[in-house]
C-alpha cells in the first residue's frame, strides 16, 4: 500500500521540491497531500490519517512546532519530520521533546529523506 505523506511548507516551490525529492528518494508512489501552514497540517493530520508528516518549522498562521504540539495533544502519534533551513541544537531538542522523529536541514538531498523515512519503519 502506498504511503500517505503530508508536506507542509508556506512556500509552494519548496513543497514542489520536497515532493520531487521524495520521488528521487524512492517514494514516487506515495500519496502526497500539501499544507501551506501549520493549521492546514493539523487538519490533515487529524482527519486524513497520513503515515508521515514532513513540515517546515517557520510558517505563518501556525508554525511547525505549534502544529506538532497540537497533533500530539490530540493523541495522534503520526511520525513527524521537520524540513527546515534552521538546525540549532536547541531546535533539535525542542523538536524531539515535542515528539518529532527527525529534522532535515535545507538544502537537503534525496538520501537525507530516504534515511529519515527508512528509520521510521512505517
Amino acid at each position, binding site marked *: 500500500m502506498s504511503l500517505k505523506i503530508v508536506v507542509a511548507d508556506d*512556500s509552494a*516551490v519548496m513543497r*514542489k521540491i520536497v515532493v520531487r525529492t521524495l520521488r528521487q528518494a524512492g517514494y514516487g508512489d506515495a500519496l502526497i497531500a500539501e499544507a501551506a501552514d501549520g493549521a492546514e497540517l493539523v487538519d490533515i493530520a487529524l482527519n486524513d490519517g497520513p503515515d508521515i508528516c514532513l513540515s517546515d518549522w517557520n510558517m505563518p498562521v501556525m508554525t511547525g512546532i505549534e502544529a506538532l504540539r497540537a497533533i500530539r495533544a490530540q493523541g495522534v502519534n503520526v511520525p513527524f519530520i521537520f524540513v527546515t533551513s534552521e538546525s540549532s541544537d*536547541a531546535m533539535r531538542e525542542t523538536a524531539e521533546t515535542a515528539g518529532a522523529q527527525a529534522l532535515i536541514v535545507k538544502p537537503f538531498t534525496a538520501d537525507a529523506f530516504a534515511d529519515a523515512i527508512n528509520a521510521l519503519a512505517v
Partner: protein
Amino acid sequence: MSTQTDAYVPTAQDLTSIAELVWSSYVDGEIVPDPAGEAQAFPAVIAHVSISGPWNGAVLIGCDPAASRGIAAAMFAMEPEEVSDEEVGDAFGEMANIIGGNVKALMPEPSALSLPSVALDTRGLQLPGAVMKSRADLLWNGAPVHISVWEGQSAHGGN
C-alpha cells in the same frame, strides 16, 4: 552574552559557500564569484530575512528581474516564461529563507529567523541605520547575484 560588536559575522566566503550549496541543490548551473561585483548596480529584485537574538540583522539576496525569474523557473522546474510574479516571489523568498537559515546557524544562539520579505520592483534597500557587514558578489548564468549580511535593529523590516 555576545553583543552586536563581538558576534561573528559571516564573511563573503561563508556566503559564497552557502550559495554554492543551495544552488547545487535547487538551481541549475553553477554560481561563482563575480570579480566585477563591486561595480555592479544594486539589484532590483530583493528578498530578505531578519535574524533576532544576541545578534540582530538581516540576510539579503538580490539580482535582476531576469535572473530572479530564471532562478524561480529552475526551482519550480518550469520555463522562465511560464513563471508568474507570484512564483518568482515565492521562490526568491524561499531562497532567502534557506540562505538566512544557514547564516543563522553561524550566529550566537538563541536566535529567531523571520519569514522572508520580497520586493520584486525596487532599486534600493530601505534599511535605514543598518550597516552592511559582508557581501558576496556572485554570477549565475552570467547574471550578478548579491548576497549580503546587514547588522542593526532596523534591518528588521520583514514580517
